[in-house]
């Protein structure tokens, strides 16, 4: 608490029998501030990656008038995440909600959807789960609930997150479901059914898990797994907290609880995993909600970023062999621009400024700012939310699921955030919150265009996890959002014009099959874009692994390069747009004369 001169002046003036005219400073108005005109940007060029020609550039024009239309009901995806708040136990367990998983579990070329169902914590201190929903896409915007047949109806766990990956490299995506009372690990049998195998796979973690990220952390081509844990709530550690106004019981804040250490599982190659946490070099004091595995320093190894609630976030630089160095503080990504930890929930990695370096995006709690950490290279980041107008949307949002995605196919990555309050009786009075759709303007700043992006985007929701992918195979990215105690939303991207795009599916051979950490660089005559295969991300969700490139008016891709973590480079030239390109590792080796 600081009392500046102003207060002293006023307090003295305020006292009875003193005349105010004798108080206060005597500064006199000198006239209004005159605002400046535009000046050229002075942003310094950071170090550039190995691929030639990558550098700051301006993306192509933005499509106007696009809306996202919720087609969940007509598509037959009727599913509701249940947090059990009707039991009136006000446990922090109720607050996390659930995520979304994109997967093509039957490999028919059409994306399917998976939703953890939540659960209930009752007054008698029992915890039950709700079934996980699996919806198979049978035609465009036609889904069928196949949960029963597929065998995802487990009700023993209170669930939150869906982490999808081909865990056993058999060509069929498997699913890890996080939550309270342990993990669920659904191995895809390849025949439309799954078998829950957490215990037999050695995934015996019993701590309260929120999100998980698949990756290949020791470069052995076998998928590994990072599990983010939240706090040490239990029925035996369930304090009573009051609402902001103090007039009734409400959900306790995370500060009331101790953090739980995260877990790193390394794959053994035989379908089982070993707990490699002690040797990994992880910090024990996180309250993890979001986690992403991505090659942040572009050294070919998947690094990890963990969004922690109310304590500093983690950035782990992968040293190889399943060992990490905690560079959270030295990188500038542990805290916000004031040096304080945020209440972080969701996370993604993308190259918002098209400089070739992956930047980190974090959704945070209200009265904070969502954090955009610009990558300066050498594991140095700068919090640029203010300079990119992210903070200008205000500080009333509680951000959860979030995703970089080029929704308008204009060549730069935009951002979606699903928002919703965590407590029952917030001071603002509203649990539901408006979503945010940030349009990337010239790779320099963002503008929220959600109010003009259709009715769903213009209404408050109890948002949690979200994921992106081209559900209807029309070339633009659609969104799926999990809501708390409300039906999920399938947001069809109805881009009015017909911009160019390219989708790239990677199939690893030396690298694990999903291609974790593989980087794709796409160059037209004027633009260069980089994407990579990431594990985890958003909040408790998994987006489609197919990489999407918006290309605006560019009809031809001059060069496409894939840098696989195995060291293999695939290189293609003169590629037509508006297609899904499948690249197997080593199918298009880089010719010696090529760059």
């Amino acid at each position, binding site marked *: *608490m600081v*009392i500046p001169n102003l207060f002293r002046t006023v307090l003295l003036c305020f006292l009875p029998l003193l005349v105010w005219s004798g108080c206060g400073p005597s500064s006199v*108005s000198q006239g209004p*501030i005159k605002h400046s005109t535009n000046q050229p940007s002075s942003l310094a060029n950071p170090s550039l990656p190995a691929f030639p020609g990558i550098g700051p550039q301006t993306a192509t024009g933005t499509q106007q008038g696009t809306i996202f239309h919720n087609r969940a009901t007509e598509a037959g995806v009727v599913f509701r995440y249940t947090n059990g708040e009707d039991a009136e136990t006000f446990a922090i367990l109720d607050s996390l909600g659930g995520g979304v998983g994109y997967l093509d579990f039957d490999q028919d070329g059409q994306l399917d959807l998976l939703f953890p169902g939540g659960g209930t914590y009752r007054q008698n201190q029992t915890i039950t789960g709700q079934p996980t929903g699996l919806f198979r896409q049978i035609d465009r915007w036609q889904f069928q609930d196949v949960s029963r047949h597929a065998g995802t109806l487990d009700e023993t766990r209170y669930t939150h997150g869906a982490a999808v990956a081909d865990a056993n490299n058999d060509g069929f995506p498997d699913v890890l479901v996080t939550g309270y009372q342990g993990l669920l690990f659904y191995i895809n049998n390849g025949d439309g059914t799954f078998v829950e195998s957490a215990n037999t796979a050695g995934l015996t973690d019993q701590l309260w898990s929120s999100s998980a990220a698949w990756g290949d952390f020791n470069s052995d081509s076998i998928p590994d797994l990072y599990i983010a844990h939240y706090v040490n709530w239990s029925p035996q550690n369930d304090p009573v907290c009051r609402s902001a106004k103090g007039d009734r019981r409400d959900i306790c804040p995370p500060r009331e609880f101790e953090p739980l250490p995260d877990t790193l599982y390394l794959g053994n190659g035989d379908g089982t995993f070993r707990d490699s946490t002690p040797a990994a070099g992880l910090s024990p004091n996180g309250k993890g909600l979001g986690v992403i595995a991505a090659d942040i320093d572009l050294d070919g190894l998947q690094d990890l970023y963990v969004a922690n609630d109310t304590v500093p976030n983690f950035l782990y630089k992968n040293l190889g062999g399943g060992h990490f160095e905690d560079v959270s503080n030295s990188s500038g990504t542990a805290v916000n621009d004031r040096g304080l930890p945020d209440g972080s929930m969701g996370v993604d990695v993308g190259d918002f400024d098209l400089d070739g370096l992956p930047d980190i995006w974090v959704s945070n709690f209200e009265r904070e700012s969502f954090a955009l950490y610009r990558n300066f290279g050498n594991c140095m980041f700068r919090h640029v939310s203010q300079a990119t107008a992210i903070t*200008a949307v205000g500080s009333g949002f509680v951000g959860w699921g979030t995703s970089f995605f080029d929704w308008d196919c204009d060549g730069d990555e935009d951002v979606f955030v699903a928002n919703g309050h965590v407590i029952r009786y917030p001071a603002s009075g509203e649990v539901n919150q408006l979503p945010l759709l940030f349009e990337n303007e010239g790779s320099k700043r963002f503008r929220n265009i959600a109010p003009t992006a259709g009715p769903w985007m213009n209404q408050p929701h109890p948002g949690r996890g979200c994921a992106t992918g081209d559900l209807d195979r029309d070339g633009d990215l659609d969104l799926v959002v999990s809501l708390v105690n409300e039906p999920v939303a399938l947001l069809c991207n109805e881009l009015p014009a017909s911009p160019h795009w390219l989708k790239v599916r990677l199939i690893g051979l030396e690298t694990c099959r999903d291609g974790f950490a593989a980087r794709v660089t796409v160059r037209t005559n004027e633009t260069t874009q980089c994407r990579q295969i990431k594990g985890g991300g958003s909040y408790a969700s998994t987006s489609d692994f197919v990489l999407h490139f918006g290309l605006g008016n560019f009809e031809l891709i001059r060069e496409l390069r894939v840098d696989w973590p195995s060291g293999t480079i695939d290189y293609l030239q003169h590629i037509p747009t508006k297609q899904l390109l499948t690249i197997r590792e080593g199918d298009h080796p880089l010719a010696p004369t090529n760059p």
Partner: protein
Amino acid sequence: MNRTALKLAIAIGLVGIALVAIWFGTRPLPANRFRLGLNAAEHENWPEVLRQAEALKGKAEFASEARLLQAIYLLKTDRPASALKELSAIEPVGPLRSSALLYAGEAFYRQDRLFDAEKLFATLASENPDSLPAHRWLAAVAYDSGNMNYAMEELAQVSRLSPTDFRPYILKGQILADLERFAEAASSYQAAVSLKPPPNVLAEVLPALVRAQIAVREYSPALTTLSTAPDDAANLALAAECHLGLGRPDEARELIDRAITLDPNQPDVLKLHGRLELDAGRADSARRSLQKLVDLDPHDHTSRHELAQSLRMLGQTAAAEEQSRLSAQSIDLKARLAALTLEAIARPRDAEVRTKMANLCEELGRPLLAATWRKAATACRQLQQAPQKQ
């Protein structure tokens, strides 16, 4: 006696009668003397207050009035204990009761007996809910004792009774800003501005309003506010921060360049300059500005955090770690102070909490604030030790 002489005698008689009448009408009656004394007090003419008090002494029916004027004189010449003695001898009922309560409350306040003062002001307010000075004093006492919620309630009463007074809104804005309730602080400052305070006050209120608006990311309204503010270095820096928040770093840069020419060492200017230089990757230039800032305020944890970042960019890892450590230390102290502030609000008579706050304020280099909390702690302790007085 001739007719002329008779006329002259009558005229002289009439003049005499008129003069007597005039004298009679204007002679300093005790009641007039009391009014003159109060008028002198309003104009802070303390010798005149004393003169009228002395003149009333010995007039038995005006003994209380004489004591009241004497008490005012003593109070305003820094003798509150003596003033209290005079006030305690005034009849507890009658027309002087309100004034006596008010000045007695002030006398207690000036002796740092905050809760004795509060009791008298509260009595006055309960007897006369529309007593403007009672509510003003109650607000001041509540603020000094760290009872911010009560202070804001009383400020609301003051605004009700004096709707054109901008001062309660400014004070309320400051309290809310201290509690980091910036949206409400901005509304309160906005209300103060709408009541058209004089230019010298406005020049201080506008930046406070802008800071609150920036804190809640209301950058465009903040720029509108600044359009009526003096074009000094601090305000240019605030405008630059608004432009930065709107994603216009080039405009911010131009403003900060202008601000530097006006005052290169102004803290807001240094802060924005450091931030812009860091954004642009010019770590050494940023370091210089940020170092100046932490020299000015060693507990400016944000600047220290950014200083650490500039040092890391320059490869000075050990120095960066030290700055990070110091930043974390300041953050910890401030977090403890914030928690204690809430405790003080919840426990308005707790001396221990206030003593801890005073100690923390000293650690944070805020001696004035420390003194305020010590005063509050002393008052709480007096309350705990002394028997309740009527």
